[in-house]
């Protein structure tokens, strides 16, 4: 007999549970108790009273579902809708695969003596700082010298594509949130969830939905993880624009569109750029995890280091990721500082 037999008997549900309440021993402890000659009829010790959880109730009444059935139900439910979901999601996300493939192909098939100067030119264009330029050059040339050039460029290509898409979607979502409190209240819990959910958890449903060989699988995982800061900071930046300036814009008869593009976005730009910086950093953090699902780049080397216990490979690749992070951070921060300089209130 199980602890909560009385519950079902007082509710008159024995019929529903099935006549054989506890007669067929199902668990190992039941069997053990039986072999020891115990009948299970002894008085219930209050100290050992189990919480009336699904499993405990199942003991008393086999018709009651076990908790494993909950997760199983989720799994089956997901598998049932997966095909229809794929039909919808596949075409929508296909451009992401193309973009990632194209970026990876492009960066690997362009000679290094074009790619490296191009990257340096970008650095110069956004930062206008000789010191930073020298630092970036040293890092990239160093990585290339130790034959990590291809891996580093793959990682960089993935980050560029994902960060670009994050900005493409994140900024409009942030603008939407800043204009409607309802949308803000609805979006913030989702953002909180995306930010706190362990990154591996994203991968599980994605693996079911898409084939592991498709780049969009890791693309989506990176984007979901990294899009949060740019949304948050766009929202915050626009909400923090000086109310007096907005009032002046209204008083001079600006339309909503003129206000958005002429006042709010330019004044929120420092915050939006801080969000972009964070987004890039977070995509870089995700890129190693994404290597579990076939993302190329330095993450592959890190995983190889872990899998084969090749300490040197893992460490050097890890260090390479740190260097990339520092480069990306400094370059975006330098451009942020330049924007700030023209935005003093």
């Amino acid at each position, binding site marked *: 007999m199980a602890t909560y037999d009385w519950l079902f008997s007082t509710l008159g549900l024995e019929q529903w549970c099935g006549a054989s309440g506890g007669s067929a021993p199902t668990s190992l402890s039941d069997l053990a108790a039986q072999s020891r000659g115990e009948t299970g009829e002894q008085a219930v010790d209050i100290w050992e009273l189990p919480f009336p959880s699904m499993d405990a109730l199942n003991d008393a009444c086999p018709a009651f579902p076990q908790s494993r059935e909950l997760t199983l139900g989720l799994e089956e439910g997901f598998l049932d809708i997966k095909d229809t979901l794929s039909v919808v999601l596949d075409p929508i996300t296909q451009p992401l695969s193309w973009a990632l493939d194209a970026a990876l192909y492009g960066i690997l098939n362009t000679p290094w003596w074009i790619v490296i100067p191009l990257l340096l030119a970008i650095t110069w264009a956004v930062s206008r700082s000789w010191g930073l330029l020298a630092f970036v050059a040293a890092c990239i040339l160093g990585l290339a010298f130790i034959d990590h050039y291809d891996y580093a460029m793959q990682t960089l290509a993935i980050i560029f594509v994902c960060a670009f898409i994050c900005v493409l979607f994140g900024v409009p979502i942030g603008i939407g949130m800043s204009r409607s409190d309802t949308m803000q209240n609805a979006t913030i819990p989702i953002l909180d969830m995306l930010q706190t959910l362990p990154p591996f958890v994203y991968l599980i449903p994605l693996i079911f939905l898409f084939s592991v060989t498709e780049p969009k699988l890791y693309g989506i995982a990176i984007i979901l993880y990294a899009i949060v800061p740019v949304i948050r900071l766009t929202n915050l930046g626009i909400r923090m624009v*000086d109310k*007096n*300036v907005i*009032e*002046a*814009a*209204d*008083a*001079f*008869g*600006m*339309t909503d569109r*003129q206000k958005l593009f*002429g*006042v709010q976005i*330019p*004044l929120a730009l420092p915050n939006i750029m801080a969000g972009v910086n964070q987004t890039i950093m977070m995509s870089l953090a995700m890129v190693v995890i994404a290597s579990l699902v076939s993302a190329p780049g330095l993450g592959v080397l890190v995983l190889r280091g872990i899998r084969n216990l090749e300490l040197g490979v893992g460490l050097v690749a890890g260090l390479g990721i740190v260097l990339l992070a520092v480069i990306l951070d400094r370059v975006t921060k330098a451009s942020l500082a330049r924007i700030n300089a*023209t*935005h*003093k*209130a």
Partner: protein
Amino acid sequence: MRNDRDSKTTKIEIRHLYKIFGPHPEAMLEHVHAGMGKSELMETHQHVLGLSDINVDVKEGDITVMMGLSGSGKSTLIRHLNRLIDPTAGEVRVDGENILDYDERQLRHLRRNRMSMVFQNFALLPHRTVRENTALALTVRGESRADYEQEAARWLDRVGLGGSEEQYPHQLSGGMQQRVGLARALASNAPIMLMDEAFSALDPLIRTDMQDLLLELQEELSKTVVFISHDLDEALKLADHLVILKDGYVVQQDEPQRILLEPADDYIVDFISDINRARVLRVRSVMRAEGEARGGVTGEIGPEETLEEVISKSGGDTSCSFLVQQDGRKLGVLDMNDVMRALVPTGASEHGLRSRASA
């Protein structure tokens, strides 16, 4: 002057304007109609009475100053004129049209073409150059750079900022920023200019400069100006018509000279008690239109001269008398005795705020 006022066209009419802040403003309206005051409404219903039964005529070409202490509702009131705030009840008529009936497009047209505004905190766009800021109204209307460049330069020159077109607002001092604010409002070429405590954030000296600049520009442009201020000296200097607000209602509105000479209640008396009357009162408001000068006439003065100027002309001799003349026409006479009588300070009223504060 007062007869003048009747002959001028009314540009803006404010009629029975109420503004109540809180979750259920309409429901509170009947309490206010029943005579409930600001503090009582706050206590019993947690609603803030912003404006209560405001009726003001703003005449074309006048500077109408609305003044009051902070919390008197003056900034709320001026924002009703271009509907940055919508009222709970009442009408605002501009050129005879009730702007509360305007749809979004008409309202935008009103703000773009018929009204401009100068703000206490300047509210310039920090990411745009002085030129682009000045041309804000023009760019909002869709004019291209080639069109607005000259216009902006002209107004910047007019407010004394020629040559700073390429600078950013943060590179300018507060006074210069407000000159840009003024140029921005003028460049819109709107007949009505709203000025919300436009000079309050400036140093006293720069403030005087700006007031002189405004008067000078007004001489030339004759805009309809609604000016908000908490500074009585400023209000008296600028106003053709002065509206004094307290706790959301109009205590007294009249020509400033008349308010000084005939304060309506203790509140006003308190307000005007430490004003330099000699600098504010003008000959026309204290002269005698009839009769002869008591002593011999020592000189001629104009009606718009202040008593301070008269005193300096008299050299301190209290037996002097002056002939008041305008365009060679005799308007009246002014004895120094009349001057002295007009200068007797009102003193703080016995039951007013000030005596309570000092008790």
